């Protein structure tokens, strides 16, 4: 109803406004500006939805062709990933431990025992209805990001890989300092990957056979830390 009224081109004489009735159409300029803004809003919303769809969808010819535009729009604010436990949930638990070295004043190097970093998280989560992000996400995501940037090799090949190594070191150092204390100059991580056993009854034609996967143990290299403790 109002739409029909606004489409009528009214006289744009600003001086004439004073005497007219309240039903007088709004000035053309204002009218045009409003319409333009409305169009812009609708177009932006549609384009946004389309670009987010292409970002969320698996790679396809369309998203490959416009990847530059999609990334420019979506990153970083609208980045998203909804592969929640998909295509398959993780079928392993990781137990990450750390040990440290300390050089005594007489020049001998002492290697500490293993300190269970994941254990802190596990016991923090247990019997807590609202576990902290520090327990559920910090070490877990630091390690998965390390894996993403390093693969099976411990040599960092990118700036991001170095950053993830630094992050993991910091987490280990923080936790050791807080829970065990003592002076140390370098730290080594050990990641034990324990597969979750397939369901007990009739494993069926699942992708994994009946044979349980072996426990995998990975030792990372020693990382120097700015000396702690003393």
């Amino acid at each position, binding site marked *: 109803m109002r739409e029909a009224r606004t489409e009528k081109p009214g006289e744009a004489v600003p001086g004439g406004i004073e005497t*007219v009735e309240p039903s007088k159409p709004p*000035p053309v300029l204002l009218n045009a500006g409003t319409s333009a803004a409305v169009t812009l809003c609708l177009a932006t*919303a549609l384009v946004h939805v389309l670009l987010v769809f292409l970002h969320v969808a698996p790679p396809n010819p369309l998203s490959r062709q416009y990847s530059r535009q999609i990334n420019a729009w979506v990153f970083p604010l609208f980045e998203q990933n909804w592969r929640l436990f998909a295509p398959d949930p993780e079928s392993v638990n990781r137990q990450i431990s750390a040990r440290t070295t300390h050089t005594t004043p007489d020049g001998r190097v002492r290697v500490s025992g293993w300190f269970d970093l*994941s254990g802190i998280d596990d016991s923090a989560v247990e019997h807590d209805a609202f576990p902290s992000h*520090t*327990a559920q996400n910090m070490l877990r995501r630091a390690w998965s990001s390390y894996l993403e940037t390093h693969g099976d090799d411990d040599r960092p090949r990118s700036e991001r890989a170095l950053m993830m190594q630094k992050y993991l070191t910091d987490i280990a150092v923080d936790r050791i300092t807080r829970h065990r204390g003592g002076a140390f100059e370098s730290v080594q991580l050990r990641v034990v990957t324990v597969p979750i056993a397939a369901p007990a009854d009739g494993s069926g034609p699942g992708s994994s056979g009946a044979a349980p996967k072996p426990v995998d143990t990975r030792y990372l290299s020693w990382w120097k830390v700015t000396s702690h403790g003393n």
Partner: protein
Amino acid sequence: MEIERVTERPISLYAAAVLRIGYGFLYLVFLLREFPHRDEIWGPGSPWTPELARQLFDQTGWLSILTLSDSRPYFESCYALALVTSTLFMLGWRTRAVSVLFAVVVASFHARAIFMTDGGDNLILLMAVYLVLTACGRRWSLDARRTRRQASAGKGPAGPEGSGTGELRHQLAASRRTLTAVLHNCGMFVIAAQVCFLYGSAGLYKVQGGSWGNGTALHYVLNLDLFRPWPELSRMADEHSVLIAIACYLTVLLQVAFPFVLFGRLKYPVLTMLLGMHLGIAVLMGLPLFSGAMILADAVFLPDRFYRALGRLRRRTGRRTHSTEAEASSCGEGPLVPPQPRQAPPPVPASRRSSAR
């Protein structure tokens, strides 16, 4: 006409209000829950040091108010600002301005601890950004209460009329109303599409996984140490392999079907089942924040008449149980006319009145 509906009337104002209250509350609870860990997550003492965060921002283009300074007092004041902003957003005080602040706060905290976030945080961030576009403060808010009081006191939102400037102001107000409505409707559309993409992709990626197909996926989920706050409960659930398989299939079906059932009555049973699923995730996996964010996102699809009925129900039960309390508070509220704003919220008539002229 369709176009007119998009440009004239903001849709689903109650759903928008529920999102505002819900996400504001959720973020407040999250901040308070992490109070003992705030420095470890967002502060200068985090293992993800401010230096690392800034280095990453240079690569990704993120910005955060938290990396502007490494001093502890600055961080503490940012944390306090986040608490206050979430509270005010939840209450709907000067909503449009506060919603911008809320989005800035959520984005800043998210970006600062990007390697500690999960799907729930991601969803809250997206919603915080989208809610800036919406008129989420029109219902169930302090702003709405103020408008109502002004209306009952006789000074409506429209200024004095008759003079030339009054006429121009009226036209500008009409134009502004149109733009607000369009922006709001676009925001709600984007939110709805976003939730559909979420479920659609979550479901379709699961279809590609073998464990969802053979009904064992949830067995693995139940055995993840970090998502097992009640091991006895998880073990108990894990023993029922048939139920697990049914739950696997139901999860995938619900998620894939979600975008397609929204336009019919079927959406009510689907939303109810999703609610059950999220409650299960919240308790069994210890992910209340994630589940809360998802439940709120689902709530965007409930129509205004549902929320109005809910409001009436709440008022009726509230009147029955706290009748004395309500009386006391309405006395304290001064010149508010109690019976008038009870049934239909007046902001609609107020805006209709001025556009009908």
